[in-house]
């Protein structure tokens, strides 16, 4: 379990990183915290020829409030968000961080890294879709904002071009009555199913039931219509399409979906 050889590049600026990515194309991989990538490299499941380290680029590690919006620099770590005082507007982000791995993972892992890795059960992926975040990426042609709804394309694949770097994630609106909850057999594991809801924006997003974080309009309609948590849970359960997989049947995944949507709704409702 030793990684294959690579050439290491430390980017000093975003433009520098983009330049390296442009030069090396598919042979390059961006590393920030590296908490998913390095493990995959140790297994040699990922073997980039060139590793472009963006973690030293100045100015990408700040959290700023911008009117109603919250702007998280690409290099903000899970632990920074966990311990930041984001106020009632964005408390959901801080509280969701306890589901991200464990402390030593959260001290290194970054918001942007998690989004770029695009595990469909990852907390940041759910939160981005839940809260209509915009992923700001910079490429050779400059910056563009990618709505979270369009960002996730499939298992571990995103709208990012090979020569683009995430620089910022913008959460445009407060989410006072929002919550994320999960179920896994063991603390810190990737969820079997994760559910996130925003009762003010009428949003329900699920992880673990599709290749990407999945919005569930049917459940959202229930919430918008003043339905109960259990009705929302039923609607979500009815709406998803899942198959039997080793260790987790479709039936069980649906049951977890129901339970977790209900619990997320109840948790969110408790936040006034």
């Amino acid at each position: 379990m030793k990684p294959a050889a690579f050439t290491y590049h430390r980017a000093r600026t975003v433009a520098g990183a983009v330049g390296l990515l442009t030069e090396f194309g598919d042979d390059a991989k961006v590393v920030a915290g590296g908490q998913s990538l390095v493990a995959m490299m140790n297994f040699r499941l990922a073997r980039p020829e060139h590793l472009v380290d963006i973690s030293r680029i100045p100015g990408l590690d700040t959290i700023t409030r911008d009117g109603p919006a919250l702007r998280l620099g690409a290099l903000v770590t899970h632990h920074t968000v966990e311990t930041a005082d984001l106020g009632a507007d964005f408390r959901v982000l801080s509280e969701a961080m306890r589901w991200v791995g464990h402390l030593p993972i959260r001290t290194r892992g970054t918001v942007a890294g998690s989004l770029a890795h695009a595990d469909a059960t990852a907390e940041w992926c759910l939160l981005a879709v839940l809260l209509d975040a915009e992923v700001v990426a910079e490429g050779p042609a400059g910056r563009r904002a990618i709505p979270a709804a369009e960002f996730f394309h499939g298992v571990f694949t995103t709208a990012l071009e090979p020569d683009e770097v995430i620089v910022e994630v913008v959460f445009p609106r407060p989410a006072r009555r929002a919550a994320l909850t999960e179920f896994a057999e063991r603390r810190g594991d990737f969820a079997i199913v994760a559910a996130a809801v925003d009762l003010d924006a009428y949003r329900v997003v699920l992880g673990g039931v599709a290749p990407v974080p999945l919005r569930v309009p049917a459940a959202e309609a229930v919430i918008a219509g003043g339905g109960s948590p259990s009705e929302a849970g039923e609607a979500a359960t009815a709406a998803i399409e899942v198959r039997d997989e080793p260790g987790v049947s479709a039936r069980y995944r649906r049951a977890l979906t129901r339970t977790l949507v209900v619990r997320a709704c109840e948790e969110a409702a408790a936040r006034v």
Partner: protein
Amino acid sequence: MPDMSRVQLVELTVNGERHELAIEPRRTLVDVLRHDLGLTGTHVGCEHGICGACTVLVDGAPVRGCLVFAVQVEGGEIRTVESLAAPDGSLSDLQQAFSAHHALQCGFCTPGFLMLAEGYLAERPEATKEEIREVVASNLCRCTGYQTIVEAIDDCAGRRRAALQARLDAGRSA
């Protein structure tokens, strides 16, 4: 011989000492600490970030030494288990608490738990026992069943708080 075309010069500060190394960038921090610097107190348990035997401090924060390439933490302040005892070899309060509570058996996972606790208590000295248990859940131990590790760290935190309070009280009464 490593592939010389890949070798990079890397400067690391470990336990206050600066080292200059010519290494392949693919070398993980824990391998560099152990095999290039001879600091074998930090152990390797899984190389995919779950067991935590390789936990060290980077700029004060507990980090998985197997999920970081040494080259990535150039310029950072790295601390390993070897830094905990005093220069004369006497054990720190945290190390003593581990011994008193029998929080180690084979001792293989122990440096990881020590550094995890060292980093965590520095950030959150007021941690409750339940919070400590959550953090202890970051690492794996196969011998103890964890209870005594939680108790040792909780005991150490309590003693540190009491000592701080005593210093404050002494300052007030002086």
